[in-house]
């Protein structure tokens, strides 16, 4: 089981948090902070597994994370999950984000955290891995987006125009999330 999925940046600012077990908001924040603390002090070239913090889990739980440019993706899982499998899952997640946002960067996550949630919902449900096949995931997401557009229809046009206006203020987006090659697990196919 996956207990929580956290995305935060290099400064520990939460960009997305998903808990599959209920924690009050303050504890959630504490967990994010603690996890950030644990993860951020690790070098780039150490292993991606951490025996979990004290707040979340316990002996049976592990933190499995990946660091992409400015963002950390951390999964807190128990022993029923395969460590390398979860690393792959993170990769699938990030690649899916990359496809959906067209060259994803931190700003995409900042402004569209809801969409990130929807994408994640196609990968993991209730703490269990739902789908690992990226084409399947993308089809589902596209279909839902289509549905959303249909519903919005003409009524949403003004709203879209306004938001387009607002978008223009954003300084040029920094597209800096690069997906590094992962030689160790590159062979795993889904």
């Amino acid at each position, binding site marked *: 089981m996956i207990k929580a999925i956290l995305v935060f940046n290099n400064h520990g600012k939460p960009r997305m948090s998903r808990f599959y077990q209920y924690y009050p908001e303050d504890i959630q924040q504490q967990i994010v902070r603690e996890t950030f603390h644990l993860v951020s002090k690790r070098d780039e070239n150490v*292993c991606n597994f951490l025996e979990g913090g004290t707040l979340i889990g316990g002996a049976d739980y592990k933190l499995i994370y990946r660091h992409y440019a400015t963002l950390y993706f951390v999964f807190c899982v128990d022993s029923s999950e395969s*460590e390398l499998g979860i690393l792959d899952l993170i990769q699938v997640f990030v690649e899916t984000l990359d496809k959906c946002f067209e060259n994803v960067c931190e700003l995409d996550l900042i402004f569209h955290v809801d969409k990130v949630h929807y994408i994640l919902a196609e990968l993991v449900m209730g703490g269990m891995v739902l789908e690992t096949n990226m084409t399947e995931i993308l089809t589902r997401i596209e279909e839902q987006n289509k549905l959303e557009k249909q519903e919005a229809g003409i009524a949403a046009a003004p709203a879209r125009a306004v938001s387009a206006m607002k978008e223009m203020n954003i300084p040029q987006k920094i597209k800096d999330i690069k997906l590094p090659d992962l030689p160790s697990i590159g062979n795993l196919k889904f």
Partner: protein
Amino acid sequence: MALKKVKGTLERALDKNVQDLVRGIRNHKETESKYIAECVDEIKQELKQENLAVKANAVNKLTYLQMLGYDISWAAFNIIEVMSSTKFTFKRVGYLAASQCFHDGTDVLMLTTNMIRKDLSSQQMYDAGVALNGLSCFITSDLARDLANDIMTLMASSRPHLRKKAVLIMYKVFLQFPEALRPAFHRLKEKLEDPDPGVQSAAVNVICELARKNPKNYLSLAPLFFKLMTSSTNNWVLIKIIKLFGALTPLEPRLGKKLIEPLTNLIHSTSAMSLLYECINTVIAVLISISSGIPNHTASIQLCVQKLRILIEDSDQNLKYLGLLAMSKILATHPKSVQAHKDLVMQCLDDKDESIRLRALDLLYGMVSKKNLMEIVKKLMVHMDKAEGSHYRDELLAKIVLICSQSNYQYVTNFEWYVSILVELTRMEGTRHGKMIASQMLDVAIRVQAIRHFAVSQMAILLENSHALANNSQRNGICEVLYAAAWICGEFSEHLQNPKATLEYMLRPKITTLPGHIQSVYVQNIIKLYSKVVMKGEVEEDAELIKEVNQLLLDKLPIFVQSSDLEVQERACTMLQLVKYTSKLQDKGVKVADELESLSAGDLNPVALKAQRKVPVPEGLDLDAYINRPPSDSSDDDIQGASFFTMSTDEHRPTYQYEGDNKVYEPTEDELEKLREARKFEVEHNPHYLKGETKRKGKKYDASNIDDIPVARIDLSVPLHVPGVSPSDKYLMLPSSERKGKKSKKGKKKRKKGGHGGTESDEDVEAMHAVSTVVDMPEGVNLSDKDDNDDNLTDPFRKLDINLDEPLRDDEKLPIRTHHIVPESSQDRDLDAEEHKKKSKKKHKKDKEKTKKKDKGTKERKRSKSGHKEKDQPSLLLATSGMENGVETAVNENAGDFKSVVDNIAPSDKIEDIEFWLSGSDAAATPSPSKEEKTVENHVSHSPEITVNDVLSTEEDDNVKISEEKSKKKKKEKRTSTKDKKLKKEKKKREKEKRNEYEEPEGITTPSKENLSISQLGTPMETKLPPMSSYKLLGENASIKMTYETRVTHQRSDQIIVSIIFNNLTSHHVKDMEFNVLDTLNTKLIRGMGQSHHDAVKVPFTLLPGSQNEGQFAFSIDSITMPQRMRGTLTYIVKSDEGSTHDKLDFKINLPCSSYLMTTPCKSADFATLLGSGDLSAKSSVNITPVDTEFSHIIAKLCFFLHFRLVEQVEKSASLYSKTIQDHPVCLLVKMNDGSVSLDGKSTDGTLLSNVLDDAKQLLTDTS
């Protein structure tokens, strides 16, 4: 109107959306909380508006704020409003917010049940999908109960996307509502073979999660998973399955044997590291479970270790980490294989990655030997000096202590070295393991007598430098060692060089800053030292010394008297008075040293951790009995009776004063006193207790706990250097030089150890000190006695420990709502959904019918109690006799929506019953079912050995390969069946007497008994009848005997119930019984829903030694005119002390035509009408010479065994009547002439009649 809408839209466009909110927060970095407070106010306004779009936008913003840590539960109701929107966009927003902030305690959740149900049955796939997603996060037990059935329906949806989600969410449902597991399980099982890989993977996922907690219930799925493993190419699924097998193998070693080969093949072939790693892990689990060294398994171990080495040597830190992790698992059972890689592990200790270092540390634990212990510990000490971060340092410290103390100091050869190490460890800054070091010091000093002298000198040094340790005492755990130091110095003061000096150290004012419990120990041990000094003074007649020391104590002890700690204060007062008194005596010239000495005379042993609990409760003592009756209706009941020493509330008198019930208490005191004495005696005379004997003595290793010494706890911390402590390094040189000399002496004795030539042998390293293993325990109790209190009853997963192979009972079904308004919605509804709805409607109808029936059943029960018998009422059997009917109705109930699934699914082949499947693996080769074989060939690259010839053919259409094994099995069956026949005859006599002994098992009504009484009512009983039993022998071997009878009910014309009594003939438990018969065209065993006609039915009980129990199995029948014989097998496990053995018993069930007859009363007038009506076209007659010529016996037998009913009897002729369950009347005229009996029968069916007459003939001529 239109204008309003446009206006709304425009307003909406100007509302802040999430992006604006984010932007705003970013622009108000300084005043973030203020800005957010403004936004929340705005959101509150927006939530008040009618427009759902505005609300959705507001909720979306709230979701973002929630992530930042703001509580949004106040908006729960608004979130539900948004969830209930018909628009997907808004619905999704609502569900997302709900999934982020709803939980068990959210009270508005109970409002959502119907809304979620509506969403789940929505035409729009994504509505249902989103609802499932949300539900998976906030499902409560109420929601789970109410929605379980809807989710079940979705599991059969035609869309894989929904199926997948529904399957996955079932796990959450089970967690919240364990009762759903059994009804839903078989459908879940079906999904394992779903054509859609996503659904399959979800099902594997769920079952793996379930099985992880309660693996034994899922053993029967092993063949299915095995098939999946060899056929699936989805690595994700493979990993899960392989992990699952890892959990299953400890329960079933034969499974492990079967797995080894495919797994090793996967290890060789796969290129995916994650899969490789999981394979290795499971192979390790397998090897652990079958650790009985079968030769070719060393090869597997070698393969694993070798592959792991490759992982560890990899530059990828992740692989390195996992490699070490897996290595430590091998270490437990095959330490030798791992020890060969010591170099690698030591190398990892230097890794820059802390996780890896910690893992390497774990491995070191198993790698030490007598030879390398010092070296390894030295290395660890060096690491400890360098280490940054207290966590890792603490870990190192704990590991050092653990390594040294493991298996009773097995590897420590020189305890002086060990004590030095412990003393060195006290220099650790800020460790929290002070207590651990202290307990080690105490343990070593107490149990290794020879070391005491050295230990005491070291402890004296510690005490001398206690100021360094005692700094910041409250914050530092290390001061705890002073506890040990003080105690050791006091207790073994005879070893002290200069007791007076030590006494002075212990009386420093600084000591008062130490925690109370340490001060208490100080005070106590000061007296011990004091008596030692006085003794010395008296012996040497040094009055000056005595005076000095008296004065010292009189001066210094008062600082303890002022302590705020009660214990310290009390002890100090006592001691002070004692000193005053002795000094008074000494002034008079009395020698008191001996008496002072006796204050602390005698040896102390550590008390075992469990000792208190193990004190046996004396006979006659009822711990739960009240000593004083609690006052009735008292509100503080719980205080009463809890303790012996509670004051009785009314009289304020100790409860152990003599009155009333207190007799119970008396023996306790006596017994306790006896126990105490016995213990003392034992301590004194224990031959194992080593009293300062020679240093070199064979050590006794046992598994006793060494950390048993009770030590209280505290904290403190300080950097320090203790001067004069002997450094441990010097011991490193010692053994190497010593070893040389010894080797020549011991060389010949050196025992040969199998395995690696390179591994060091421990035997030649001599231990320098003996370890005493004595601990105090109550008499007659072993230390190793199991602790029974460890069970953790609060585990939520315990509730899911449910036997899944048992057939479903009547009451086991998912709760289904009774009222449901089907929402009429848009026209463009696809066909699929329409069908769906119809089905669900049908289901409701059936359900209602069923409940009606049930009602009737209960009514009927009442009626029959009051003595009425009405033919046409549904019989008791349906209402009460359990599971068979349950299965049947459940099947009916679900048949509708099943069909669609069943069509999609490849017939679940013949997965042979688990026992058989597993036992196949014992026969040399790997008999994998041929289907696997086929798929295996497609599969990546399987080694050729798997496709050997003697594979079991399991697919029906696969006629090409008929396995030898199968034909063998058939032969065997034949043989046993003939044997059975013989046995049957022999046993029949015994059987007849059995009837009376047979106990009715709880909860099962026995219709046969009722039938019996009915038939006896109608049967004349002037003469005494021989005891009769309708139970016939079914099969018997050395361990099990089965007898059976058949039962029918007029309510079901297509069903017969075979009730079997299982009789355990062994003195062991018989468990996991599985009952299976080969179905014939006409007669089929009714199995659980979804099970194929080859699945066995689990017998829902285990048999205690020598006991018996009855199980009922229902068969569906088409035609009743022909007798049926069915072959079957019962497999079971006999669990004895030596282990468990699997066995099977073949049998044949006879279902003669007469078994379909029901005793039916008939009036003679009706009987005559019936005979005269001409309906009974079939006639038949037979002449028999019966064994028993008593006419009444013959009639009784016919009535009892063939279920006839006497209509009329005139002298030696009688007319009998019966009816079959399919309403064929059978009339019989019995006449007796000179020892022969003629039977004339009439019925509507000729075959039936002649068969019944045959039965009668057999019955009456049977000599046995």
